[in-house]
């Protein structure tokens, strides 16, 4: 029998315990990876190609405070600004009967927005139709599929933020952005429905180059300093991270729970390993008597616990990886999670935890074996 065969046989001699131990390690690592994925989803906003160039200009007071529409001319003149469009979050309830709508609706200037949302691919004739019809909208592919919408269908929204209800005709369906869920419609349509208040939610600006982006944000901020509507211009990334900051203590909480999960995992594995070794103290003593060195015995124990933990990681972290590739989390979580992707870093984390676990859980039995003399070991009845 080879050494590896010996270790494998030993590990599998109590199959039930082996399966249970591997499963509990797998379960915990699965959970750990899931938590990490969720945390990343909440704290690390999704980006697409265009996001390095996009700058978002909002009212300095807060996102909820509107900006005067007259700012458009000033922003356009700022050097380095390639394009700018009004961008207002409508926040309507779809059909009015949903409790909360999983996709956003934005009022934009279709011609100007085309420059900015370069990731979104819309067929040319659909684009033309959208620009031509003031009450029409383009819909993300995911939303269109979810509600089985096609071109020509109508969508009704009840305004929650704005005191008006809107109805759009679908002129086109786009895809290719990081989050193909949103609905874009004419800002003029919103203005008319509100009686032309002369305000917009935010401005979206496209920088001529990514290097210039921070420079341009400074220029925009300065251009409106000490006016009645001071602005906060920031890159899309900084803007999204601003949302993350608002989650406050919830982030810490999820991080803390991850630690608890890992700790619980450690406990379980350590106890199983010591159980497994304690059971064969006598055998180990026999091996010692036969002339096996102490370090060889250590190697047996270590290899077994290491193998158990790694196998757990393969099933747990690997299982999470497979599951979240196959599963459509977006539909399942009704839009709360979009990507739900297991990154290589998370896999690495799971496997390193498993490795440390293997080492730690081997420690206690190894100390036990080292301390016991052959005679003592042979005497144990356990």
């Amino acid at each position, binding site marked *: 029998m080879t050494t590896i065969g010996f270790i494998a046989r030993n590990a599998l001699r109590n199959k039930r*315990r082996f399966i249970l131990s591997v499963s509990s390690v797998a379960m915990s690592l*699965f959970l750990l990876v899931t938590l990490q994925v969720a945390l990343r989803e909440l704290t690390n906003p999704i980006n697409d190609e265009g996001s390095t160039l996009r700058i978002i200009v909002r009212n300095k*007071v807060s996102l909820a405070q509107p900006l005067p529409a007259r700012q458009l001319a000033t922003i356009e003149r700022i050097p380095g600004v390639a394009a700018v469009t009004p961008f207002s979050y409508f926040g309507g309830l779809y059909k009015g009967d949903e409790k909360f709508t999983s996709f956003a609706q934005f009022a934009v200037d279709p011609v100007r927005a085309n420059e900015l949302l370069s990731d979104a691919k819309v067929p040319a004739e659909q684009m033309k139709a959208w620009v031509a019809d003031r009450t029409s909208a383009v819909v993300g592919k995911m939303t269109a599929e979810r509600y089985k919408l096609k071109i020509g269908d109508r969508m009704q929204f009840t305004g929650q933020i704005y005191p008006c209800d809107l109805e759009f005709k679908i002129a086109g369906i786009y895809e290719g952005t990081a989050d193909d869920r949103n609905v874009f419609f004419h800002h003029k349509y919103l203005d008319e429905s509100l009686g032309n208040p002369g305000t917009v939610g935010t401005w979206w600006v496209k920088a001529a180059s990514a290097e210039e982006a921070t420079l341009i944000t400074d220029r925009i901020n300065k251009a409106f300093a000490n006016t009645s509507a001071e602005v906060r211009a920031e890159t899309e990334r900084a803007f999204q991270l601003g949302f993350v900051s608002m989650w406050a*203590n919830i982030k810490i909480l999820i991080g803390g729970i991850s630690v608890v999960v890992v700790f619980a995992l450690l*406990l379980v594995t350590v106890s199983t390993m010591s159980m497994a070794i304690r059971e064969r103290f006598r055998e180990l003593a026999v091996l010692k008597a036969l002339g096996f060195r102490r370090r060889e015995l250590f190697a047996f124990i270590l290899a077994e616990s290491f193998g158990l933990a790694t196998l757990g990681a393969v099933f747990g972290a690997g299982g999470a990886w497979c599951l979240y590739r196959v599963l459509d989390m977006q539909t399942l979580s009704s839009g709360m999670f979009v990507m739900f992707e297991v990154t290589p870093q998370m896999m690495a984390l799971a496997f390193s935890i498993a490795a440390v676990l293997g080492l730690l859980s081997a420690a206690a039995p190894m100390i036990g074996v080292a301390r016991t003399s052959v005679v003592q070991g042979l005497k144990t009845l356990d």
Partner: protein
Amino acid sequence: MALPLRYSFRNVLIRWRSTFATVLGIALVVFVFVLLQSLAAGIEKSSGNTGDPRNIMIVRKGSTAESASLISRENLREIQYFEEIARNDRGEPIISADVLVLVNLPRSDGSGEANVLLRGVSPRGVELRPQVRLVAGRWFTPGKREIVVSSRMANRFANFGIGQSFKAGTANFIVVGWLDGGGSAFDSECWMDADECRSVFERDLYSSFLVRPVDESAATKFLERIEADRRFKLKAEKEVEYYRKQTMTAAPIKWLGGFLAIMMSVGAVFAAMNTMYASIGARTREIGTLRVLGFRRRSVVLALLIEGALLALIGGIVGCGVAYLWNGYTTATMGFETFSEIVFEFTVTPRLMAEGLIFAVLVGLLGSFLPSVRASRLPVIAALKSV
């Protein structure tokens, strides 16, 4: 004949060393469950605790939150002379037209910014909300850019100390006092003069009206009247009802708590099974002896199930106990309805503790079921012979 309870009980105690890890594992599961649910309970408690049952709140039809509502001044002029509205000793109708503004302010620890709900409130509005008390400083003076901040938010945001000032919009606000909402949603608000608020933030419209009707029958009549009048696109409901519904933020936390609890408990069941199998394996002979003495199979199963449940119960008690340490601790997150920071407390209710314990016992029973069945099926002679 059933085995005495003492048998199960003493077994748990005697083998504490080998069961320690399992007990702790179950304790951690229960801890996570109770802690997360206590967050959700805290949000619900804070909403449920808000408002005066006599008051009626009016917002725009279709808006889900007060902060997203807009009501015109014409509506105020019409509604304030409704005879259903009570009057104070100076003969003025008790109605407050409030303005809510979201203000993005820096956190005190420099970790970014968050939205704070600023309420522009009239003197009537302060009277209508008796649960809001001033705990330090003084109330704002109408017509001045003075602000009273929530005492629970004071350490979370920069320059919220009394006498300090911060900039929002075009104005500088001086903090003149700290308010306490008594564990209600008002603990997440800052208050200032309504007219000043409207002029600084260029708000032509109000966000909501709060009304005190003369009595219960007037309240019903008032609600009907607002609903029936086609001129108003408004929604009137009891203030307490309105706040009771503002618990959307709690839903994902509850979901997360449930999800984690289930996943972790699967792991815990595996661990408990391992422990019980080992513990039964170690006393095969003892169980054989019990059978020889005449104890039935089901008595053995029952005794072992009780042992597993007891084991888990100890874990559950420890978990609940540790989670209880957090009870009353103030924390905050972004509220989904208001889109602003909401402050609330971890609230470990007796119900949650009971749920946690039941949960633990279930884990124990599930974990010990298969091992105990196996023990009861051991052939008596073989069991007696085993070393």
